[in-house]
C-alpha cells in the first residue's frame, strides 16, 4: 500500500518536473532564441527527479525522456526525431551519462544514509542488551539468594528475618517487572517501524494516572504538580509516555541525593506542551552527562549499591520521545538539581464544547 502510494507520487513528480522543464525551455527559446541552455535545464530536471524519487527507475526514465525531448523539439530538424545525425547521437549520449550518473549518485547517498541509521540503531540495541543483562542479573541474584536462604533455613530463621527477606523478594520482583516493561517498550518502538498506538490523551488524566501509580510505589515522596488550567489534549501513546514520566520521576528518587522537592510541570508553548521534571538534589555530574542516554553503565559506578536502572531507563525514554517527534533533554538547574524536559505537539481543541 505504502509503496504504491510512493510510486504514484514519484511518477507524478517526474511527469510534472519534465513538463515544467519543457515549458521553460520553450519559453527561453522563443524569448532569447538560444538553445545553449536547453540541455542544462533538462539535466537540472533529471537531477531534481533522481534526488526526490526512490531508486534508479524514475531518474533513468527521466533522462531518456529528456534526451528524446531535446532531440525532438530543440535540435534541428525541429518537431521531428532525428536519431541518425552524429551530433544528435553524441549529445544524447552525454546527456544520458550525466543524468544516469546523478541518479546513481543520489540513490547511493540515500542508501548510505539508511545504512548509517541502521548501524546506529544496531549499536543502541547492543548497548541496551549489555546493560540489560547486567541490570536483570542483579535483582535476580538477590531473589534467588533470598529464596534459597528461606528454604534451607526454614525452621531456624526467625519470623522477622523471613519477613524481611520476603519483602526484599517482593521489592526486587516489582523492580524487575518495571524493567521488563521498559524493554517491552523498546521492542515496540524499535522493531523496524515505530509502533505507537497513538490517541488523544487528556493531559490531566495522564498526570492523574501517573501520580496514582507513583504514589503506590513511593508513598513517601510527594510530587509538586503544575499543569495548565485549560483542557489540553495530546496525541500520544499513553502507556509509553506514562512510562517516560515514571522513569524520570523514579530517577530523581534514586539518584538525586539530598532532594527535598520534586516538580512535574507542564507549560504551553505555542502548539506544544513542554514537560519539565525537576528536582533540587545533587544534579548530574559532567562525566555522567556524557553517557547519560547511551544505556551504558559507567564502569566505575558501584554495581549494586543503588539501582542502576538509570541508563536503560533514560535511553528508553529518549527513544520513546523521539518516536513522538520530540527530544528528551537533560541539564542542571542554575539553583541546583537536575532538570529533564521534552515537548509534545498538542491537538487543536477549539470546537469541542458539547
Amino acid at each position, binding site marked *: 500500500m505504502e509503496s504504491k502510494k510512493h510510486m504514484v507520487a514519484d511518477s507524478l513528480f517526474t511527469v510534472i518536473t519534465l513538463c515544467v522543464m519543457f515549458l521553460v525551455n520553450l519559453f527561453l527559446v522563443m524569448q532569447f532564441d538560444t538553445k545553449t541552455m536547453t540541455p542544462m535545464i533538462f539535466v537540472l530536471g533529471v537531477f531534481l527527479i533522481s534526488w526526490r524519487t526512490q531508486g534508479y527507475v524514475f531518474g533513468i526514465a527521466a533522462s531518456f525522456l529528456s534526451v528524446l525531448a531535446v532531440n525532438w523539439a530543440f535540435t534541428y530538424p525541429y518537431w521531428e526525431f532525428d536519431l541518425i545525425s552524429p551530433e544528435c547521437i553524441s549529445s544524447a549520449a552525454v546527456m544520458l551519462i550525466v543524468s544516469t550518473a546523478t541518479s546513481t549518485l543520489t540513490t547511493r547517498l540515500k542508501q548510505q544514509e539508511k545504512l548509517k541509521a541502521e548501524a546506529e540503531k544496531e549499536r543502541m540495541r547492543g548497548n541496551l542488551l549489555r546493560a540489560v543483562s547486567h541490570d536483570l542479573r542483579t535483582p535476580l541474584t538477590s531473589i534467588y539468594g533470598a529464596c534459597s536462604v528461606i528454604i534451607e533455613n526454614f525452621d531456624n530463621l526467625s519470623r522477622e528475618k523471613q519477613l524481611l527477606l520476603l519483602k526484599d523478594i517482593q521489592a526486587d*520482583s*516489582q523492580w524487575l*517487572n518495571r524493567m521488563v*516493561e521498559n524493554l*517491552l517498550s523498546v521492542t515496540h518502538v524499535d522493531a523496524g517501524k515505530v509502533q505507537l*498506538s497513538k*490517541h*488523544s*490523551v*487528556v493531559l*490531566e*488524566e*495522564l*498526570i*492523574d*494516572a*501517573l*501520580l*496514582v501509580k*507513583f*504514589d503506590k510505589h513511593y508513598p513517601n515522596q510527594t*510530587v509538586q*504538580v503544575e*499543569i495548565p488550567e485549560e*483542557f489540553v*489534549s495530546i496525541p500520544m501513546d*499513553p*502507556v509509553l509516555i*506514562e512510562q517516560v514520566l515514571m522513569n524520570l520521576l523514579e530517577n530523581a528518587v534514586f539518584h538525586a541525593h539530598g532532594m527535598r522537592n520534586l516538580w512535574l510541570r507542564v507549560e504551553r508553548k505555542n502548539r506544544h506542551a513542554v514537560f519539565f521534571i525537576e528536582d533540587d538534589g545533587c544534579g548530574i555530574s559532567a562525566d555522567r552527562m556524557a553517557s547519560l542516554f547511551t544505556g551504558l553503565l559507567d564502569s566505575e559506578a558501584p554495581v549494586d549499591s543503588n539501582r542502576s536502572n538509570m541508563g536503560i531507563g533514560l535511553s528508553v525514554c529518549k527513544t520513546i520521545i523521539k518516536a513522538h517527534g520530540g527530544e528528551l533533554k537533560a541539564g542542571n538547574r542554575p539553583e541546583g538539581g537536575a532538570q529533564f524536559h521534552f515537548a509534545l505537539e498538542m491537538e487543536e*481543541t477549539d470546537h*469541542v*464544547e*458539547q
Partner: protein
Amino acid sequence: MSNNKYKILVIEDDRKILSMIQTVLDTNGYQVLTAQRCQQGILMLSSHVPDLVVLDLGLPDMDGEEFIRITRRSSMIPIIVLSARTEESDKVRALDLGANDYITKPFGTGELLARIRASLRINRMNLQAAMPDNVFTLEDLVIDYDRRQVSVGGNNVHVTQIEFNILALLSQQVGKIMTYSAIIRAIWGAMDEGSIKKLQVNMANIRKKLGCKPGESRYIINELGVGYRMTDARE
C-alpha cells in the same frame, strides 16, 4: 458462615499462578474452584454455579473473550479478567463484551481481593436494586437522582444535564469500571468520531466542578485509555 462462603471460579492455565490465587482466596474465606481450560470452566460454571469468575485472557484451548461471550448469553455473573500489559486493547474489548473488571499482571494479592470484594458487592447491590431515598452518597459527595442535584460538602454544584447523566451513570455502577464506549452509548446513544473527546471534555468539567486534583483519585478514578470508575469508598 462456613457454608455461606462465596464460590469463586478461577480459570487460568499457568499452574503456579493458579495455585497462588487459590491460596490467597482460600485463606481469605472464599471457596475456590479451578479450571485450566476454557471448556472445563464453562462446564464448571453450569454445574457449580459460582458467585464470581476470575478469568485469564490467554488460554490455550479458547480465547478468554469467547468465554465471556458464551457466559454472557445466559448469566450476569461478575467476571474479573487477568491481563498482561501487552494486551491493553484486549482489556477494553473484554470489558465491552461484559467483563466487570480487570487486573493487570503482575498483581498484588491486596488488589485482587479488593476487586473481588467490589465486584461481589456491586452484584449484590444490583440484586437489591435502587438505593435508599434515591440518593447516592460517597464521602462528602451527594447525588440526588430525583431532584437531579449534586452537592459536595453540603454545597450545591451546578452541573449540566450531560454532566449529571454521566455522574448518575458512574454512581449507579459504583466500583465498576465503565469503558468510554459504554458511557458514550448510555449518554449519547451512538458513538461517532468526536464522542470520546466530548466525553473527556465533560469529565474534565466534572472534575473541576467537584474539585478533584490530579493524583488524589477522589470520587472518580480515571483508567487511562480504558474508561472511568467511581471509587468505592469501602474498598
